């Protein structure tokens, strides 16, 4: 998001405006009021006596509330303002704006205050790809409201605009002719409501989009406060960590997203503002990262994804029975099946990660009821691995899109076109069996077996899953092992040949447990070696590979989320000091980014740039970057549920000093964890 743009958000409704609070979007300019992936306002411009205003200051009061202090004039020269204007905006099912005009003179003043409004009703995908609209527009006045309307066949979207004080309405906006007394003030309350409309004709009032309930604004503030109060407390000698933690929990609150079928419950959306929707992979991984601090996100994610789990073969949506969705969208292109996001299923990992999350959730919460309720969903997910995901019939999970037009080419987390390559830079064909997918499949089967024995009371199923997992592990350690490099290939190609570049994916293999103990030390040597470890974290692709680029999206940058799982993996194999180095590197980067980690940052060696270089991305905060410090805290403290107890086995960087995390929730009710930094990580991170 470019500087100077102000965004406020609630659910998947958000406003992006300039620092004056005005919106002047073009077809491709990502400003406006958006709801359910549709732009409901592309123009919203305030003038006083025909003059635009200048911002004195803009305050984000809460993530859903912004206040703009304005004065008339262009701002090119200093203005002795005789008037000031305060706009206070809060997002609900549209937005509510309080407009106050203050007269600082000794005489009353006559003003013409005007708001211009228009909407192009663009789908988010259209904003991204600059596509043309196929329907018709029609604006009109209905009672006390200005209604902006778009219609394409039975698809109708409307924006209802009204004011609390008398206004002259026309097709392009509303005008207030007012006299403001000497040293007095004039106020009006503006309501902008995103509405579904009715294909039968003009409605009497706005129709809430698909059951989205209008929430009282105070509820939002109270909700945020309660969320923060419920969260465990972090006290640390290294103060930046307390700040990072607070930032994470507040950002997680902003990223909470309620589905239409479960109002009042929240799961983590992928990123703010453009990815405020269900993403299978992102919602699952963020829920995993946050589990020690809150289990609410995991339980909603598990239920919401089960509701939408695939049940049929649909090539357009890359859907198979048992597959967990990739992305859900609500805009016009999805409605007309011009995009497959209703939902789209093109990922190869979320289905296995779903079972991993279900098991991890039970280990923390002891909530066997949910595990029982989701037995069918988990069974279908486990069945998908062998029945649908083994696309080459070679016993490995691989992916290839069936929707070649609008489907996703790379269906692993590194989803850009050049992310998977051979050492020499060539790209493999399809299907591709990336290595971390095999790790996730192994972990899903092992964890599925535990749940089958413990909760579903199906020991035969458990035995079968364990046998399959053991077989997969044996074959994997043989077929993916790059002998001359002593690491695991990033993938097997469509001929079963190794795609032999060195990547961060090997860290996920430690997390999933598929790595033979005899091979772990060699893998760790690579992860912490100079080709992969930058001093801040592990690069997505190793220096020296043909496609390596320190600012290439998945080919050299450092991803905080990736590193948080790698740290967990290092702990799983007992490499405590190495895990502490990743904890140190990423948290120190978070300090530089003022507590909010970006999606990715440059893979330059720490010793050469001193500061991490942010990779420009559209979304901030990003859910799994927000969750990364939480998982790093877990890894640093060595938190591991063990029956009804929580094991704490700290291995923390020296810099952190004393660390206390109080009131960690779980099956043990609440437990405190303490640790003291003893590991000199500087010799690795600052070498």
């Amino acid at each position, binding site marked *: 998001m470019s500087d100077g743009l102000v965004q406020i958000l609630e659910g998947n409704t958000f406003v992006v405006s300039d620092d004056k609070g005005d919106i002047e979007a073009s077809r491709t300019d990502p400003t406006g009021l958006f709801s359910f992936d549709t732009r409901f306002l592309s123009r919203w411009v305030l003038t006083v006596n025909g003059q635009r205003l200048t911002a004195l200051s803009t305050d984000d009061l809460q993530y859903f509330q912004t206040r703009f202090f304005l004065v008339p004039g262009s701002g090119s020269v200093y203005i002795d303002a005789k008037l000031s204007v305060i706009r206070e905006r809060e997002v609900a099912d549209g937005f509510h704006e309080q407009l106050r005009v203050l007269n600082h003179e000794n005489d009353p003043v006559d003003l013409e205050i005007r708001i211009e409004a228009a909407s192009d009703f663009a789908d988010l995908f259209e904003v991204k790809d600059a596509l043309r609209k196929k329907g018709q527009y029609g604006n009109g006045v209905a009672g006390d409201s200005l209604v902006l309307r778009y219609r394409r*066949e*039975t*698809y*109708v979207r409307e924006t209802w605009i009204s004011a609390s004080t008398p206004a002259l309405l026309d097709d392009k906006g509303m005008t207030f002719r007012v006299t403001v007394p000497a040293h007095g003030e004039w106020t009006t309350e503006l309501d902008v409501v995103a509405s*579904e*409309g*009715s*294909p039968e004709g003009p409605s009497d009032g706005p129709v809430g989009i*698909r*059951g989205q309930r209008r929430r009282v604004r105070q509820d939002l503030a109270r909700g945020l406060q309660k969320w923060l109060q419920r969260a465990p407390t972090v006290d640390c000698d290294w103060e930046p960590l307390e700040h990072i933690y607070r930032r994470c929990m507040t950002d997680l609150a902003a990223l909470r997203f309620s589905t*239409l*079928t*479960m109002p009042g419950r929240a799961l983590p959306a992928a990123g703010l503002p453009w990815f405020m929707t269900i993403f299978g992979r992102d919602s699952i991984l963020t829920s995993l990262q946050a589990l020690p601090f809150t289990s609410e996100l995991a339980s909603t994610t598990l239920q919401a994804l089960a*509701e*939408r*789990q695939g*049940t*049929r*073969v*649909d*090539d*357009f*949506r890359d*859907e*198979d029975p048992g597959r967990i969705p990739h992305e859900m969208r*609500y*805009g016009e292109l*999805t*409605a*007309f*099946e011009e995009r497959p996001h*209703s*939902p789209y299923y093109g990922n190869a990992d979320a289905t296995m990660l779903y079972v991993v999350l279900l098991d991890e959730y039970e280990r923390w919460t002891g909530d066997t009821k949910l595990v*029982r*309720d989701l*037995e*069918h969903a988990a069974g*279908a997910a486990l069945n998908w691995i062998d029945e*649908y995901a083994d696309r080459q019939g070679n016993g490995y999970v691989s992916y*290839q*899109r*069936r929707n*070649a037009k609008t489907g996703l080419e790379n269906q692993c987390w590194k989803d850009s*076109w*050049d992310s998977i*390559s051979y050492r*020499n*830079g*060539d*790209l*493999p*064909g*399809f*299907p591709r069996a990336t290595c971390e997918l095999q790790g996730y499949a192994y972990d899903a089967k092992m964890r599925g077996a535990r749940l089958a024995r413990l909760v579903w009371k199906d020991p035969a199923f458990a035995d079968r899953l364990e046998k399959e997992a053991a077989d997969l592990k044996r074959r994997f350690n043989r077929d993916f092992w790059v002998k001359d490099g002593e690491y695991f290939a990033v993938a097997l*190609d*469509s001929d079963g040949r190794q795609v032999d570049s060195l990547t961060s994916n090997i860290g996920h293999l430690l997390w999933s447990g598929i790595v033979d103990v005899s091979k772990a030390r060699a893998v760790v040597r690579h992860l912490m070696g100079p080709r992969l470890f930058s001093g801040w974290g592990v690069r997505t692709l190793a220096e020296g590979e*043909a*496609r390596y680029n320190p600012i290439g999206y998945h080919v050299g940058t450092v991803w905080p989320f990736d590193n948080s799982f790698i740290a967990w993996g290092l702990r799983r194999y007992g490499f405590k000091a190495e895990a502490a180095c990743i904890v140190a590197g990423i948290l120190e980067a978070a300090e530089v980014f003022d507590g909010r980690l970006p999606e990715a940052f440059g893979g330059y060696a720490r010793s050469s740039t001193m500061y991490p270089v942010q990779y420009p991305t559209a979304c901030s905060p990003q859910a799994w970057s927000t969750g990364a410090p939480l998982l790093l805290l877990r890894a640093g403290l060595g938190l591991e549920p063990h029956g009804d107890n929580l094991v704490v086995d700290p291995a923390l960087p020296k810099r952190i000093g004393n660390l206390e995390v109080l009131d960690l929730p779980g099956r043990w009710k609440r437990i405190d964890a303490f640790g003291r930094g003893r590991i000199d990580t500087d010799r690795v991170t600052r070498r």
Partner: protein
Amino acid sequence: MASAKTRSATADPISEFFAGLEQPGHLATFERETATLRFDVTDGARVEHWHVAIHDGDVTVTRRQLPADAIVRIARSPFEAIVTGRLNAQAALLRGMLTCEGSMAALMTFQRSLPGPPGSTGKVAPISSAEVMAQRRPA
């Protein structure tokens, strides 16, 4: 509750769909789910009612105009497209062709029983590295 096993003599895809839904008596995808839905299917001035009761995997279909957790209203022609897999139910909902009053969760549960598009095979021909490289830039 009387269950009407409707088997229309004429080829009516909607009747066929509901008969097929009820016929196995039990659907694993509906286990641990409880929901009732009524489909009010309009055909000109006529309205047909289909009432579906889901209870822990068991499905009962009747033609009665009973209350339900979700009342779904849709015209016959798009509903025929939905039950034969030619139109996606979620897309129809977003498009305003289908309205749902009451429980969206019930509709979400029900849609699992809908077929995929005719012609979807789940198969795709492999692509070689050479073909991928021909479309993409070298490093």
